[in-house]
C-alpha cells in the first residue's frame, strides 16, 4: 500500500526561489546563466573595442595569402609562394607524423619496460624502475632539448665523413648520423614492385586466415596446430619468392656524401628525431606504469585457477591474464597517446615545423592574426582529442563487464 501524499499545494511565493529546495535550483541556474552571459558580453564588448581601437577585424582571409616562408620538412608539395592554408596543412601533417611515430615507439618502450619491471630478474627490475622514475619526474621539454642537443652538437658534421682519414663512418655503410640529421636509405619502387607489395598484403590476410582456421579446428576437433612458425612463413616466404622471381624490383637508394652534404636517401631532421624520441621515451615511462598496473590488477586467483585447470604458463598469460589486463591497460594507454599528441606541440622549442610552428608560430607572427590563428590551432587539437575520446567511449562500452 502506498501512501503518497502530494506536497501541500501552497501558492507559489517569490521567497520559495530561495528557501524551497524544489525551486532553488532554478535560482542557481538562472544566476549561473546570467553570470555566464554577462562574462561573455564583457569579453565580447572588450574584444570589439580593442579591435576597433587597433583598426583590426576578425577575418580568415589571411589563409589564402602567400605564406612567404619555407618549411624544412615537406610531406606534401609546398614552397614559400603557397598559401598560409597550405602551410597549416603541412604543419598538421607534420604533427600527425610525429604523433604517429611517437605513439608506436612509446608503446614499444612502455610495454617492454612495463613487462620487464615485473621480471624475476632483480637487476632488470631495478633498471626499469630507474628508467620509469627518471623520465616521469623530469619535464618532457628538458628531454626534448637534451636529445636535440645530442642531435645537433654532439654528432659529427657531414665533412667528418669525407676523405681517407674520415673521423666518422656511416653505420653499416647505409645510415649516416650527422649534426644535420640522420640519412637513411629509401626504397625505390621499380616496375613490378606493386606485385610484391600486393603479395605481402595478401600474405598478411593469409596469416589471419590461417590463425582463424587453427582456432576453429581447435574448437571443433581439439586438434592443436602450431601457429608461430607457420605464420611467419606465410608472411615472409611468398613475398621473398615474388621479390626474387620478378628480379628484385625494389632497390634501396643509399645516402652518399656529395659536396658539403649527404645526397639521396631519406633525410630525417634532428628536430624530428629529438621530438620523436623524447616524446616516446617520456610517454613510454608512463605507459610502462600503466602496463605494470594492468598486469598486477589481475588477481592472483586467476593465475592459480588457470594453473589448476592445467594450462601452461604461456597460455595462462595469453588466455587469462592478458585479456583481463588489456581491459585495464587500454583506456589509460589511449589517453597517453592523447597526451603525446598534445605534447608534440612542444615542437616549437626545437624548430620542428608542426602546426604550432607554422600556424601558431610563423603565420601568427607574420600576419598578426593572433585570435584567428590560435582559435584554429585549438580547434585542431580539440578535434583530435574529442575524436579519440569518442572512440575510447565506444571501446569502453563494448569492453564493459556485463554485470547483472
Amino acid at each position: 500500500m502506498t501512501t503518497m501524499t502530494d506536497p501541500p499545494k501552497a501558492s507559489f511565493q517569490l521567497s520559495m526561489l530561495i528557501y524551497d529546495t524544489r525551486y532553488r535550483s532554478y535560482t542557481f541556474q538562472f544566476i549561473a546563466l546570467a553570470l555566464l552571459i554577462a562574462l561573455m558580453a564583457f569579453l565580447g564588448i572588450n574584444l570589439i573595442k580593442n579591435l576597433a581601437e587597433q583598426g583590426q577585424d576578425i577575418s580568415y582571409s589571411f589563409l589564402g595569402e602567400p605564406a612567404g616562408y619555407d618549411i624544412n620538412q615537406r610531406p606534401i608539395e609546398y614552397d614559400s609562394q603557397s598559401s598560409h592554408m597550405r602551410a597549416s596543412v603541412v604543419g598538421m601533417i607534420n604533427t600527425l607524423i610525429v604523433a604517429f611515430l611517437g605513439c608506436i615507439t612509446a608503446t614499444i618502450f612502455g610495454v617492454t619496460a612495463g613487462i620487464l619491471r615485473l621480471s624475476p630478474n632483480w637487476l632488470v627490475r631495478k633498471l626499469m624502475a630507474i628508467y620509469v622514475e627518471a623520465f616521469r619526474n623530469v619535464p618532457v621539454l628538458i628531454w626534448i632539448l637534451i636529445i636535440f642537443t645530442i642531435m645537433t652538437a654532439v654528432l659529427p658534421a657531414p665533412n667528418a665523413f669525407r676523405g681517407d682519414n674520415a673521423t666518422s663512418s656511416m653505420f653499416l655503410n647505409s645510415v649516416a648520423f650527422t649534426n644535420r640529421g640522420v640519412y637513411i636509405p629509401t626504397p625505390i619502387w621499380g616496375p613490378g614492385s606493386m606485385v610484391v607489395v600486393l603479395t605481402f598484403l595478401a600474405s598478411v590476410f593469409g596469416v589471419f586466415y590461417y590463425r582463424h582456421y587453427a582456432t576453429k579446428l581447435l574448437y571443433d576437433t581439439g586438434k592443436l596446430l602450431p601457429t608461430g612458425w607457420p605464420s611467419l612463413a606465410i608472411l615472409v616466404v611468398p613475398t621473398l619468392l615474388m621479390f626474387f622471381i620478378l628480379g628484385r624490383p625494389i632497390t634501396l637508394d643509399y645516402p652518399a656524401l656529395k659536396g658539403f652534404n649527404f645526397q639521396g636517401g631519406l633525410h630525417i631532421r634532428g628536430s624530428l628525431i629529438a621530438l620523436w624520441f623524447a616524446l616516446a621515451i617520456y610517454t613510454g615511462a608512463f605507459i610502462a606504469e600503466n602496463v605494470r598496473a594492468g598486469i598486477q590488477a589481475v588477481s592472483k586467483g586467476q593465475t592459480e585457477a588457470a594453473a589448476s585447470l592445467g594450462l601452461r604458463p604461456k597460455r595462462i598469460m595469453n588466455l587469462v591474464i592478458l585479456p583481463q589486463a588489456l581491459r585495464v591497460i587500454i583506456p589509460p594507454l589511449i589517453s597517453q597517446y592523447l597526451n603525446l599528441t598534445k605534447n608534440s606541440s612542444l615542437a616549437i622549442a626545437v624548430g620542428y615545423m608542426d602546426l604550432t610552428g607554422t600556424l601558431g608560430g610563423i603565420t601568427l607572427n607574420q600576419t598578426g592574426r593572433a585570435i584567428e590563428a590560435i582559435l584554429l590551432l585549438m580547434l585542431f587539437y580539440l578535434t583530435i582529442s574529442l575524436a579519440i575520446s569518442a572512440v575510447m567511449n565506444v571501446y569502453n562500452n563494448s569492453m564493459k563487464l556485463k554485470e547483472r
Partner: protein
Amino acid sequence: MVQEHFAFVRSDMLPEAPPPAAETGIVKWLRENLFSSTANGILTVVSVLVVYQIVTSAAPWFFNGVWDSPSLTACREILDGKTGGCFAVLSERWNQLLFGFKYPSELYWRPGLAFVLLFIAAAPLLFGNIFPRKMLIFTGLYPFIAFWLIWGGPVSTPIFALLGVLFGAFVYSKMVKTSAGIAVVVSFVAALVFWIVSGYLSGPFANVMALEAIPSRDMGGFMINLMLGVICVSLSIPLGILLALGRQSSMPIIKWICVVFIEFIRGVPLITLLFVANVVLAYFLPPGTNFDLILRVIIMITMFSSAYIAEVIRGGLAALPRGQYEAGDSLGLDYAQSMQLIILPQALKISIPGIVNVAVGLFKDTTLVSVISMFDIVGMIRGPILSSAEWNGVYWELFGFAVVLFFITCYGISQYSQWLERQLQTEHR
C-alpha cells in the same frame, strides 16, 4: 612383559645440517634473482655491461669536474684535455639559475625567506598528525606574506587583501544557515566590494613598511617554476572541486557549463593556452588594462590544471557507493552539509594520488613558459647562459642540473603522496 632392547636410541635431536651451498646466502639470492634461467642470465650480463658502460663514462666526467672557473675556455684549460665537466657554470651562474638575471641581487633574501617559510606553512598541511593545528593559522597567512616578500610594495596591499578574505568569511558564516550556495555567492561579492573600497583607502598607507617593489618581469629562474607550481596548484584544487561538483550536479545548465569548460581545456595543449595568455588575452580585457604576463600565465595555468583536477575528483566522487549519498540525504543533511561532512572527505581521499599526479605534471609543465619567452630555469639555460660568450657550449652540466632539480622535487612529491596514501588507509586488509 616383554623387555624391549634397542641397540641404540637417540635421545636428543641432531643439529641441523647447513643447507646446500647453492641454497643459501648470496649464492641463492644470485641464482634466484639474477640467473634463474638462461634468458635471465643473458639479461643480467647485458644489464651489467650497460651499467658499467654508463658508470665508467660518467664517473670521470663527474669526479674530474671543475667547480671554479670564470668561463668555459678557462675551464677547458684547467682540465687540460682530460674528461671532466665544467660545473663551474653552476657555481658562477647559481643565482641566475635560481632567481633569473634581473632580480636585484641584494634582495635575494626575500624570495629565499619566502621559500623557507613555504615549508613552515606547508608542514601542518602535509603532516597534519605531527605538527600542531595552530600552525594552520600561519598557513592561512602565508600567501599574503609571500606575496609581500616576493613582489614587495606597501604592506597595506596584502593586509587589505587578507581583511577582504576575512570579511568574506565572516559574511559566509552569517549566511550559511540560510543556504550555503547563496552564502558563497554573497560572501564572494562582499569580499570583492571590500577590496574595491580598500583600493581607494590604501593611498595614505603607500609608504608604510614598503619593501622595494619588484615587477614580475624581473623574476626568473627556478623561482618562477616554483612560484607557478605552488600558486597554480593551490588555486586549482578548490576550483577543481567546484568544477567536479558542478559536473555531477543535477542542474543541467551548471552541469553543461562545467562539462564544456573541462572538455575544452583538456582537449587543447597547455602551450596554446600560454599563447592565449601571451597574445590573445589582452584583447578580451578592457582597453588600457595591462596586467603582468606572469599573472596572465597564472590564470591560464590555473584554468588548465583545475580542469584536470576536476576530472580526478569526479573519479573519486563516482567511486563512492551510492549508499553514501543516500545516507547523507536520510540524515536530513542538505547538499552543502552532506558534501562537506560525508562525500568530499571520502572522495578527496580516493583522489589524492590523482591530484598529486596532476600537481607533479603541472609543476613539470611550468617549464613551458620558456616558450613564450619567460626566463624560467629552462629559459635561463637556453637564453642568457648558453648564449653568453663565457658559457657557450656547456650543455650537459646545465641540463643535468635542471634534470636533478626537477627529479628531486617531483620524486619527493610522489613519495610523499604514497606515504600519505598509506597513512589514510583505513580499510582492513
